[in-house]
């Protein structure tokens, strides 16, 4: 290969355009090593069993084919600079892409030959003869290597060719690809819904037994998405602009309606799903709950807490101790809801105990100390010293039994629910009544209540409370811990409550104080904010939400061991918050759905069962990619997005200022 070192922007353009040999070599090498890595860790072979499009594309091939295509595409991709005309794409894109692809193929072929000559399997268990055969297209190693170079070149050239396509084709092509991927990921979901609706035949038409799309289904999905994109793109943009252009209050209403709709769908979902999917859903719900709590601590108050699992453990163990008849020494054998005040109380105490000493530290120091506390919690639970309270390594079994000889569960008495609602109404009514008695001028945007309506509300609340207390069990709902749909529903209730609480707090003076402390602790204090109580409050609320999660977790499993509260739990919850978007409620929900739902939790399965072994690897890849490409998270809060895109914000503001200045001058 001749080194063509034409500088960017120069008029001289050979067959490679302005792509240098160096950049081709670099991308080719990175691509080749990526493929070798995917093959050597066994991903390729494990995924090969699952088809994407039956029978032509397996997930194994899909997991490596993207590499030459992407690198072939990237090598001749130019950074778009405003005001500089990019040279029109041409043959150089295809040639350079092909060259990169060939390098990728060459490296993989080399790997194949080396693996054939040297016995690598002692170190890399996954370089099996079968894998090598699949990778080499079932040919002899040398032949396979040569085929790999050719295939790589073809795929790389394909990637380069993408530049030649006009944007109006590239967009639809992208959506066709995305649709194929989504349909594959959602195989369980779609199949499940179809079967539950009694349309199993349709399911069998779409998905083959290998769990891949059938050829006709794949064609329909791809063409459908392609056409939909062409036909709908204008309308989607118009709808989005309409939402973005709304006033603040209208936006808020849209968000509220969206939230209610989502919860309603969430409540309906379990009936459409089978056991496995409901298991995934309840895990997602649990991690949303935990993520919301950590979001208060990390996202709002900016306290990097790496020992969050300790509070989760406090919730789980408190529930276990007070509900299990077999808890070693202290065993009041309470029901789940009777245990909740204990759980809350213990969590608050734990939040204060851990929070008080660490609250004076900042940033990295805080992270390290909380990391230590997280481990201390687990080791204390495991220790023989506390064995007669927590059962050490044996853990605690028979948590919250529904009855003698029955498994773990929760019994919801609607009477008490009614009573709780009544008490809330009573309090609201009282506050309104007190306000109506006050002699103050009405303010804009503040409703004023009459004493009469407030007293009526109080009366209704009192009535509900009394009735609920008198007939606590007029209606009950028994949730068995091993019944995923029911567990999901109760987890959803708690998650919605947690979301509500954090949202309301965030929009109050406490929430503002948290943000101020996160921004600049010293100045927040100088502006009259008591930073110790503000930070402790964040810690305690985070701890309480985590403890709810722990309580539900304990009931779900019926048995808990110290082993369930590893440091990795803290990390995963943190990753959910970061990937979703720190300080954003919807972000936490999205993060949990994507990570826990699709990939699976630390010990929980996800939609893509094939990924189980490589879960942590993928977590890492996602995290790194996010930090590079989208540090604000998948669905960030406006503040966070602004913060991490300061330059763009400044530019927008500058443009606006030019208009603003013009307006100011006019009168």
């Amino acid at each position, binding site marked *: 290969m001749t080194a063509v070192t034409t500088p960017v922007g120069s008029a001289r353009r050979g067959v490679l355009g302005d792509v240098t040999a160096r950049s081709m070599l670099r991308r080719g090498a990175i691509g080749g090593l990526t493929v070798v890595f995917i093959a050597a860790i066994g991903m390729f072979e494990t995924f090969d069993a699952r088809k994407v499009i039956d029978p032509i594309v397996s997930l194994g091939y899909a997991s490596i084919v993207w590499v030459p295509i992407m690198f072939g595409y990237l090598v001749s991709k130019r950074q778009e600079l405003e005001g500089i005309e990019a040279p029109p794409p041409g043959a150089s894109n295809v040639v350079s892409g092909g060259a990169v692809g060939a390098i990728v193929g060459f490296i993989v072929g080399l790997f194949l030959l080396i693996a054939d000559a040297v016995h690598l399997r002692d170190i890399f268990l996954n370089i099996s003869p079968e894998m090598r055969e699949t990778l080499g297209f079932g040919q002899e190693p040398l032949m396979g290597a040569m085929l790999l170079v050719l295939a790589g070149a073809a795929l790389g050239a394909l990637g380069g060719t993408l530049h030649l396509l006009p944007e109006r084709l590239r967009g639809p092509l992208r959506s066709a690809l995305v649709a194929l991927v989504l349909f594959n990921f959602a195989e369980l979901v779609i199949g499940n819904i179809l079967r539950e609706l009694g349309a199993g035949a349709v399911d069998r038409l779409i998905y083959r037994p290998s769990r891949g799309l059938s050829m006709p289904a794949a064609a329909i999905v791809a063409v459908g998405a392609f056409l939909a994109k062409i036909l709908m793109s204008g309308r989607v943009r118009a709808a989005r602009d309409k939402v973005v252009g709304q006033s603040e209050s209208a936006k808020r209403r849209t968000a509220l309606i969206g939230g209610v709709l989502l919860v309603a769908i969430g409540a309906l979902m379990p009936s459409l799903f089978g056991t496995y999917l409901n298991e995934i859903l309840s895990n997602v719900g649990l991690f949303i709950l935990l993520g919301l709590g950590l979001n208060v601590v990390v996202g709002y108050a900016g306290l990097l807490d790496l020992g969050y699992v300790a509070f989760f453990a406090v919730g789980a163990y408190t529930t276990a101790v007070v509900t299990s008849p077999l808890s070693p020494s202290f065993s009041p054998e309470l029901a789940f809801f009777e245990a909740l005040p204990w759980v809350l109380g213990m969590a608050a105490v734990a939040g204060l105990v851990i929070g008080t000493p660490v609250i004076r530290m900042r940033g990295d120091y805080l992270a390290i100390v909380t990391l230590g506390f997280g481990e201390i919690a687990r080791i204390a639970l495991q220790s023989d010293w506390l064995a007669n309270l927590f059962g050490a390594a044996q853990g605690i079994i028979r948590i919250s039994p529904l009855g003698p000889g029955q498994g773990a569960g929760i019994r919801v008495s609607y009477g008490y629910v009614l009573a709780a609602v009544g008490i*809330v109404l009573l*309090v*609201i009514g009282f*506050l*309104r009544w*007190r*306000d109506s008695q006050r002699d*103050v001028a009405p*303010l*804009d*945007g*503040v*409703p*004023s*209540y009459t004493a009469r309506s407030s007293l009526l509300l109080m009366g209704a609340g009192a009535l509900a409370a009394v009735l609920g207390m008198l007939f606590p069990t007029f209606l009950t709902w028994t949730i068995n811990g091993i019944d995923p749909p029911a567990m999901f529903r109760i987890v959803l209730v708690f998650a919605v409550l947690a979301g509500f*609480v954090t949202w*309301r*707090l965030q*929009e*109050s*003076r*406490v929430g*503002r*104080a948290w*943000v*101020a402390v996160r*921004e*600049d602790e*010293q*100045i*927040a*204090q*100088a*502006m*009259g*904010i*008591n*930073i110790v109580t503000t930070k402790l*409050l964040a810690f305690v609320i985070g701890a309480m939400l985590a403890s709810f999660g722990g309580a539900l977790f304990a009931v779900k499993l019926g048995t808990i061991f110290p082993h369930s509260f590893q440091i990795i739990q803290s990390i995963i919850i943190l990753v959910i918050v970061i990937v979703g978007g720190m300080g954003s409620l919807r972000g936490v929900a999205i993060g949990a759905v994507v990570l826990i739902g699709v990939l699976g939790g630390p010990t929980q399965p996800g939609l893509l069962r094939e990924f189980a072994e490589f879960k942590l690897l993928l977590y890492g890849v996602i995290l790194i990619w996010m930090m590079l490409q989208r540090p604000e998270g998948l669905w960030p809060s406006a*503040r966070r997005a*602004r*913060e991490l895109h*300061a330059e763009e*914000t*400044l530019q927008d*503001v500058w443009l*606006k200022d030019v208009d*603003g200045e013009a307006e*100011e001058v006019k009168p």
Partner: protein
Amino acid sequence: MTAAILDVRALTKRFGGLNALSGVDLTVNSGEIVSVIGPNGAGKTTFFNIISGMFHPDQGEILFRGDDIAGMTPDQVTKLGVARTFQNVRLFPNMTVLENVMVAQHCRTRQGMLSALLRSPGFLREEAEIEDRAREVLSFFGTRLAGYRHDQPAFVLSYANRRRLEIARAMATQPELLLLDEPTAGMNPRETRELTELIGELRDERGFTIVVIEHDMRVVRDVSDRVAVLDHGIKIAEGSYDEVSSDDGVIEAYLGRPAATGEAAS
């Protein structure tokens, strides 16, 4: 001395071997504007840091309306009615202009978490009041921080606007005593003139007592009732601008000792 709002007595602060302040006395009467001037490193900002509770003094008393506030934390001092701005503007950069001013009212508001959760009438009223007061405070700066600027993050503001927002934020804590640390630093002459007038208005219309650290002598002349001069942590002069500006010790501190005779100046 019935009207003394701030009475600092024999304030001393050492950083290692450096005497940042040694035995500084200063009395500020209610409704006064007092300037604190002095060469770089004279201890002016340390003086502010101690009054506002960010540092604790080694010796001395700080009486604010008769209460000794030495040793209190900054939030307690702010709650009692002392607010300050910072030499190197320190806003909450990612909060909007309005939020910056709203959050400063934290210590003047009291609605708790329960009423926030239930959106009680008291909570809603207080939130509305906080926002109204924030807008009112920002309107003090005329069109500078008006309209669409309310919803901009603080980090996009121009330098002069950041200074204004800092003053607005300090005003929002509803203080009696306002400590302004070089409010006109980095402003152009027109902006400086504008702010000089505003400092006067802060006292005349809003009723704040003001202590201001300033390097621009025209500003000092135009705003101050009294001027105190610090040098190497010692108060070397105090009096009206004219008295202080003709004081030999002050001139020496700023310009150095005359070469031959002691009578070169004035």
